[in-house]
């Protein structure tokens, strides 16, 4: 494969995973538990967007925005009805994590009940892909990159130039202090859920547009998204973006590599060309995850 093609594919994959990993890492940082329902809500939101777009005929961008807002609201509601009470009770992070797993199972199957298991395609116009330095890129993919870039700039501004962002960073820096001013931080936590799930829906919809939409989508991306967050140093949103891009590149490079020369031991044996079977693509993020945990569990940007 052309190097330019690998770069394009990696960037797109990295952009999609970034939007998903940001929210996961933020919830982990502020609330201290891994949210195993995160990607499930992304898939659920993508289904909402699909419904608005193809069944109600609303414009795609508007559909995604609506779906993101709605899913964000669900995030707030779940915090008010479940997580806030558990926090007040000082529930263990382990309990929280298992609850999110149960929630994930429920939400995935709610999608299945409403939209059935059959795969869906976002209706996209079929246009000739563009060629940039030998790499093929569709207009839809260009749009994905563009929107991902805007979303990330918006996130940066949100974190640094709003009251919410400042409060969030303050909580992140000093969790003891944040607990002392509980009311303020409760509001911030709800906003955080809103942002986390809205971003997840944007990322999830992009994945669904580029590939397919089906109820198990959320489960299928949970490992890469966690991997991206851990790779970048869990708790750090910028690290999550870096981790997602790194993972995007790693996946695409490993898939296109020919391991033949390596195993022929410099031409001693003729093994022909050896490429990783695409059936194992999902395993790449697992291998990278294990490597990170073995070598540097705090991630690329983390301290020892």
């Amino acid at each position, binding site marked *: 494969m052309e190097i330019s093609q690998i770069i394009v594919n990696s960037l797109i994959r990295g952009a999609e995973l970034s939007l998903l990993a940001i929210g996961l890492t933020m919830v982990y940082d502020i609330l201290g538990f891994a949210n195993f329902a995160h990607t499930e809500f992304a898939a659920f939101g993508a289904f909402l967007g699909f419904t608005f777009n193809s069944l109600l005929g609303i414009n795609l961008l508007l559909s995604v925005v609506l779906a993101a807002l709605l899913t964000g609201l669900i995030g707030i509601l779940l915090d008010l009805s479940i997580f806030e009470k558990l926090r007040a009770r000082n529930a263990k992070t382990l309990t929280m994590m298992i609850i999110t797993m149960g929630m994930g*199972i429920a939400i995935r199957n709610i999608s299945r009940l409403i939209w059935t298991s059959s795969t869906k395609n976002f209706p996209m116009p079929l246009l000739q892909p563009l060629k940039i330095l030998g790499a093929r890129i569709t207009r839809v993919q260009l749009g994905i990159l563009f929107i991902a870039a805007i979303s990330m700039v918006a996130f940066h501004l949100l974190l640094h130039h709003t009251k919410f962002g400042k409060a969030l960073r303050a909580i992140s820096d000093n969790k003891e202090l944040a607990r002392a001013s509980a009311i303020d931080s409760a509001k911030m936590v709800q906003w955080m859920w809103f942002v986390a799930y809205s971003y997840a829906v944007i990322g999830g919809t992009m994945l669904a547009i580029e590939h397919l939409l089906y109820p198990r989508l959320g489960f299928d991306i949970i490992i890469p998204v966690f991997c991206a967050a851990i790779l970048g140093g869990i708790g750090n949103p910028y690290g999550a973006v870096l981790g997602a891009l790194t993972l995007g590149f790693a996946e695409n490079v490993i898939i296109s590599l020919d391991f033949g020369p390596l195993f022929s031991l410099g031409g001693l044996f003729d093994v022909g060309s050896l490429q990783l079977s695409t059936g194992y693509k999902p395993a790449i993020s697992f291998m990278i995850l294990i490597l990170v*945990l073995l070598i540097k569990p705090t991630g690329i940007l983390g301290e020892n």
Partner: protein
Amino acid sequence: MPIANFTIYLFTMFGIYALFAMSLNLQVGYAGLVNFGQVAFFALGAYTSALLVVKAGLPIAVGIIAGMLASGFFGCLLAWPTKSLKSDYWAITTLAAGEVIRLFALNEKWLTEGPFGVMNIPQPLEGLIDKYYNIFYFIFVLIVVAVVYMLLSMLTDSPFGRNLKAIRDAEDLSKSLGKNTQKIKVQVMAIGGLVAGLAGAIFAHYMVYISPENFRPLETFLIWGMIIVGGRANNRGAILGAVVIQTFYVSTRFVGNYVPIGSDLMSAARMIVIGLLMVSFLIFRPEGLLRERKKTYPDEV
């Protein structure tokens, strides 16, 4: 006799899932190690035993033991990179490992027959017992459950079990009292793996046919439902949970006969209930139906 046969099937499945749930309970309930990929151990036990017996022609007993060992070894392997990390990392690595094992079964057709699965798995003593074979197998499973329950109770009542609970409740403290918590975590993953592998092997020889479809992540969630509903750090709770969840799971199949709803939607509805059940139990009755028993030492000194 369809109802009698079905009842025996159901009870045999209770037994297999009770073993499976007890293996998870040891890791989660006692040691606090969150394992979201327990199905991988079940699959390893099932495939190892089935393949050794079908392809290598080894005796079934050897297959079952090899299945246990493979699964136990996998537990050690998995515990290695994560043994010094927090439980969040356990959760995600085990979840991922479960998927990798399934991918392996799906992709390595030369060994596992891929999506077609392994067929005609021999059953123990199948030529000798004809008519009441399923009753025989049920009794066999029952005996295995009883033995495993006894051995696990001995373990959890011992100083080893006390160390597990200490790691779960206060890992720092365990370290400060000289406990090698990393080694203990590897041990508990290995033992949990042995038991789950045993459950998997017994499952394979009972079903006669296994494929990657039998080892979807769904299975892990089911046994999580079992230990959350039944009660953690209590082996009886795990068994009770296996009975409750399995009864619910199997009985909803019949609902399809009366309500015009497709099997896919039915299974979605079923999993929604199990997911919500997990969440509600953790909120309203976190200890489960049978709570962890307080260990007291009656005055003997």
